[in-house]
């Protein structure tokens, strides 16, 4: 497991490292590690290939990129390798200990059919001269990238004790200025920016995407027709249903942990924003709050017992929670004059929020038990924090210039990176749950 004290000792402040990764789906994805820890030297040896044509995907490169982007590892260059084994039988540990490498990943891809492959990888501990994990997975050309991310997840978990989130997705909203106005798009990509897909586009704003627990559907707010309504769209088919279009505001949807209910904000004709829960199948709503203040941005605790929400009932926005069964809300945040948009970590231990920190809107996490608040981001307009399913990393939007960009940060604040992409204004990132394979 991770030793916090040692990690902190190696903290390197504001080391700016730009790594250019080239990919098929996008010209380039720039990742700046804006804050980081000392990175562990490892080696990811190019994979062997047995088959008819060439290897359809450089699996080792995907794994290496994943581990590099985590901010915790520094894979050595291929040119520096003294040997390039493709299985454990060819491993010479001395060749790696000379290089000061802690761990070595080797593997091979074998074509087993016209569109069928077998991916095998092994992870070795150089110091202990032993295999830490070895695995073989079937793949097709279409799933090869996900298989590579899964291998990286297993390697990452073995080396850090933290579950990997390389085989996950991120949904976000972009806005582009066009000649005839603005174009809003709801996008989904792999967490490394590859495989970007447009889910929906509109000349009217799109807001507040939220993943279903099975990561097959997205709920979102659309302003089509000059009014807000909430849709649930199935990603694979593109089919969508309108689940809430009541008079006034329909906003801030979030799925319950069992996927059956949606917490949302309804304003009604008189604009009294309150937290409601919608049974998706029955289309029945029940009201959880009745205060005349702004109550919005509801989100569930992972055990489904509570709904955390933003309310300005005390004057400025603060975070409250109410039993999902109803009852009297209790105030959760007391530090600072502005705390909004609560999101619980999937392990239930941390609460992320937008926190006004000496004039800057920043991402902060509060330890649910200890109640102490840790500011994680360094911008002036940071918003929309969303936990990765391993509870260890958050993604959020920041606005360094005119356009919003995405950043991620570890929940301890030690590793922060920026994910820059394209020319559009990117906002409201939401990290998917773990994907079913």
């Amino acid at each position: 497991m991770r030793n916090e004290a040692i990690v902190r000792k190696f903290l390197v402040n504001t080391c700016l490292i730009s790594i250019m990764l080239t990919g098929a789906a996008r010209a380039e994805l720039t990742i700046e590690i804006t804050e980081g820890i000392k990175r562990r030297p490892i080696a990811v040896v190019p994979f062997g290939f047995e088959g008819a044509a060439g290897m359809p995907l450089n699996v080792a490169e995907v794994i290496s990129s994943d581990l590099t982007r985590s901010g915790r590892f520094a894979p050595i260059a291929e040119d520096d390798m003294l040997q390039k084994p493709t299985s454990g039988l060819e491993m010479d540990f001395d060749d790696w200990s000379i290089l000061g490498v802690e761990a070595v990943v080797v593997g091979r891809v074998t074509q087993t059919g016209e569109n069928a492959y077998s991916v095998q990888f092994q992870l070795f501990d150089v110091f202990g001269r032993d295999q830490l994990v070895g695995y073989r997975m079937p793949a097709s050309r279409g799933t090869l990238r996900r298989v590579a991310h899964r291998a990286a997840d297993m390697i990452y978990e073995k080396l850090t004790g933290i579950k990997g989130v390389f085989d996950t997705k991120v949904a976000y909203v972009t806005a582009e200025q066009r000649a005839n106005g603005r174009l809003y798009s709801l996008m989904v990509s792999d967490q490394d920016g590859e495989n970007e897909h447009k889910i929906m586009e509109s000349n009217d704003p799109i807001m507040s995407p939220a993943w279903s627990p099975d990561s097959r559907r997205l709920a979102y707010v659309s302003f089509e027709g000059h009014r807000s309504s909430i849709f649930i769209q199935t990603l694979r088919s593109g089919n969508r249903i309108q689940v809430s279009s009541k008079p006034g505001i329909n906003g801030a949807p979030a799925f319950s942990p069992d996927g059956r209910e949606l917490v949302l904000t309804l304003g009604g004709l008189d604009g009294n924003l309150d937290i409601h829960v919608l049974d998706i199948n029955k289309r029945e709503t029940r009201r959880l709050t009745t205060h005349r203040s702004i109550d919005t941005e509801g989100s569930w605790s992972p055990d489904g017992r509570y709904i955390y929400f933003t309310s300005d009932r005390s004057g400025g926005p603060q975070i409250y929670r109410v039993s999902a069964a109803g009852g009297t809300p209790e105030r959760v945040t007391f530090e600072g004059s502005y705390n909004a948009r609560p999101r619980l970590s999937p392990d239930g231990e941390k609460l992320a929020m937008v926190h006004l920190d000496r004039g800057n809107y920043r991402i902060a996490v509060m330890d649910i038990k200890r109640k102490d608040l840790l500011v994680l981001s360094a911008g002036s307009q940071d918003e929309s924090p969303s936990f990765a399913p391993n509870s260890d990393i958050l993604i959020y939007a920041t606005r360094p210039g005119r356009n919003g960009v995405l950043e991620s940060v570890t929940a301890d604040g030690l590793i922060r990176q920026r994910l820059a992409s394209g020319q559009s204004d990117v906002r409201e990132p939401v990290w998917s749950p773990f994907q079913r394979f």
Partner: protein
Amino acid sequence: MSQYKLLVVSLFLVTLAACASQDIPDPDPMDTTYGSEDGANTDSMDGSGLGDGEFVDYDPDAGELTNTIYFDFDSYELRPDDAEIVARHGRQLAENSRLNVRLEGHADERGSREYNIGLGERRAQAVRRVMLIQGASASQIATVSFGEERPAAFGSNEDAWAQNRRVEVKYTN
């Protein structure tokens, strides 16, 4: 009579502006003027002699009537000067039941997006309440909040933020 005609003409113009703005999602940051610019009902003065003159009434509704109401930071209270402008819109609605408005509430870009939807809605509701008090019917008024999603001015500075904290009164027929 002349005032009514002016009102109809200017309403027509406002409606055109509203229609045009539907094609262009970003609203024009300029205020749309509403009503006559040259003093509404004094133009019927007939200065041709002592015989057939008309009395000129004091009319609090004369003069420019703006369609954009601005708000202070994190506030949904109407500024005192604006309350009178909103009241005049309300009286127009009360006097002409065929008129309908959509109140579009907005917020500046700072802070959380859905909370800003709340702020925009509260601003639109503050405007709506004054209109209702003036006798407008609830069925004449629709509200929508775009939060920070449709800024009138771009830029991360006090000037842009002040222009974006607003309610736009849009006549929809």
